[in-house]
């Protein structure tokens, strides 16, 4: 915004839980007004990272800055300016929806209108229901309402749509897009690639506490990644090759086919989608250290 400093800055962030290193040197920045996604399999370290930025967990080492504050010191002004949806967290069992939203509104210096927020998350019909009677997805919407009612400029969403039905997911996306239109910054984690693709300006794919790739979802899916060329050889065996530039390979294949006087069958040239990249990067077997090396290379390529 004014000073050009990013909303979130993370440098060589590390976190160990009694010897087990869950986060192993993360670096990323989130600009003001940007929607940034952390994408990765279970146990990748997404929640650990987000909760360090929210001030819930202490980092083992590294530098983090959130809106210019060190979240480890938990300054009150920072808490007034952020909204948090935790991956899992409770609420008073006997509180009513509208009562909860109003109560939380009262904790912030310049809250939004509680009724408006209830409408945004689609809980109008449940405003007088007790929290303990809400369904899982409805509770999740209440989480979102409580995170938004303080009118935060930065919102952390740890798997905000897990447990939502498809319609609720779409409307949550709309809500997040509206936040972006209002100039808010959003850091979200998700397992859903379509969600990352639909919402995020940039995503980082995380596994074993490292970033494997980072960039706008479209670029991760296409320009940044390799081409995959598949065809059938003279014996009808399917072949596939990944190359950075397919020109030479295609020339070779077509001239060989012409020389043989047979058509080149089953030819296709594709660029991997975000899903391919994700599955490719995260599903590789083999030991973590080696993957770390690959990761570094891949990340280089992306940049």
């Amino acid at each position, binding site marked *: 915004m004014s000073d050009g400093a990013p909303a979130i800055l993370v440098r060589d962030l590390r976190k160990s*839980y009694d010897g087990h290193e869950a986060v192993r040197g993360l670096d990323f920045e989130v600009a003001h007004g940007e929607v940034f996604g952390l994408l990765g399999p279970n146990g990748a370290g997404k929640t650990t990272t987000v*909760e360090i930025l*929210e*001030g*819930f*967990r*202490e980092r083992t080492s590294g530098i983090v800055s959130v809106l210019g504050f060190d979240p480890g010191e938990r300054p*009150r002004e920072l*808490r*007034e300016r*952020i909204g*948090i949806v*935790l991956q*899992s*967290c*409770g*609420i*008073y*069992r*006997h*509180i009513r929806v509208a*009562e909860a939203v109003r*109560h*939380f509104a*009262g*904790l*912030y*210096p310049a809250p939004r209108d509680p009724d408006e927020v209830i409408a945004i998350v689609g809980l109008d019909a449940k405003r007088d229901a*007790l929290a303990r009677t809400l369904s899982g997805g409805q509770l999740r919407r209440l989480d979102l309402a*409580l995170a938004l009612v*303080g009118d935060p400029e930065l919102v952390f969403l740890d798997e905000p749509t897990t447990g939502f039905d498809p319609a609720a997911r779409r409307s949550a996306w709309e809500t997040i897009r509206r936040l972006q239109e209002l100039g808010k910054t959003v850091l979200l984690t998700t397992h859903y690639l379509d969600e990352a693709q639909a919402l995020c300006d940039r995503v980082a794919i995380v596994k074993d506490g490292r970033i494997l790739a980072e960039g706008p979802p479209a670029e991760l899916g296409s320009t940044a990644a390799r081409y995959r060329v598949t065809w059938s050889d003279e014996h009808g065996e399917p072949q596939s090759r990944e190359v950075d530039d397919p020109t030479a390979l295609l020339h070779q294949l077509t001239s060989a086919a012409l020389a043989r006087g047979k058509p080149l069958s089953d030819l296709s040239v594709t660029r991997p989608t975000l899903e391919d990249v994700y599955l490719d990067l995260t599903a590789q077997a083999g030991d973590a250290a080696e993957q770390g090396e690959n990761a570094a290379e891949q990340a280089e390529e992306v940049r």
Partner: protein
Amino acid sequence: MGDMALAWRQYRLERRMFWRNPTAAFFSFVLPLIFLVLFGALLSGDRENLEIIVPGIAGLSVMATTFNALASQMTFLRDQGVLKRMRGTPLPANAYLAGIIGNAATNAFVQIIIVVLAGRLAFDLGWPKDWLVLVVFTLLGVACFASIGVAFSHVIPNFEASAAYTNIVFLPLIFISGVFYDVNDVPAFLHDIANALPLVHVIDGLSAALVTGADFGDLASDLGALAVWTAAGIFFAVRGFSWSGSREE
């Protein structure tokens, strides 16, 4: 909004939540009533023993509504992740705790009123001899047992264990502290242990207020002991306060 206003807001929410679960609210008031009814039947007309039992039950009520209630409530809120959620808001920890402890303190005062009324109406003990001593010792008892209750919740691993943890403290303590008999009748070593712990001193003060009419001068050592326990309780309550469940840091 100022911190006082936030604490007041939280207090009002806690009161509403307390009454919205009426059976739980009911049972939290029933324990001293059961004791009063039982001992009233057992000791009807035995004035000497009633004068020991009634202040004893008053002390027990103060402890049950603060120490027991807060140790289990804080463990529950922590396990449920409510504390964690509150921690993510601008609400300061002390305003939040003030709201929760204020709720427990209100219950303690309601129970003292019940015991006083029972003493006057059912047991013919008359009105308290010294209202000021009554209020001061109830307040000190609340401050002491509430802070120790919050501190103790840090030791309790999870909500399922909270009843066992609080009872292992509560039950022996009420037995050695002369809730049901004259403290001076117990063996010397138990007497010494009880004297080192806070409940005896709360009961001494309540007994002075309700029965003997002893003044603050006679109660100086009780005031001192309670002040020390309260200071220790507050220190450990604040120091160990983590907001989160055991898995998170």
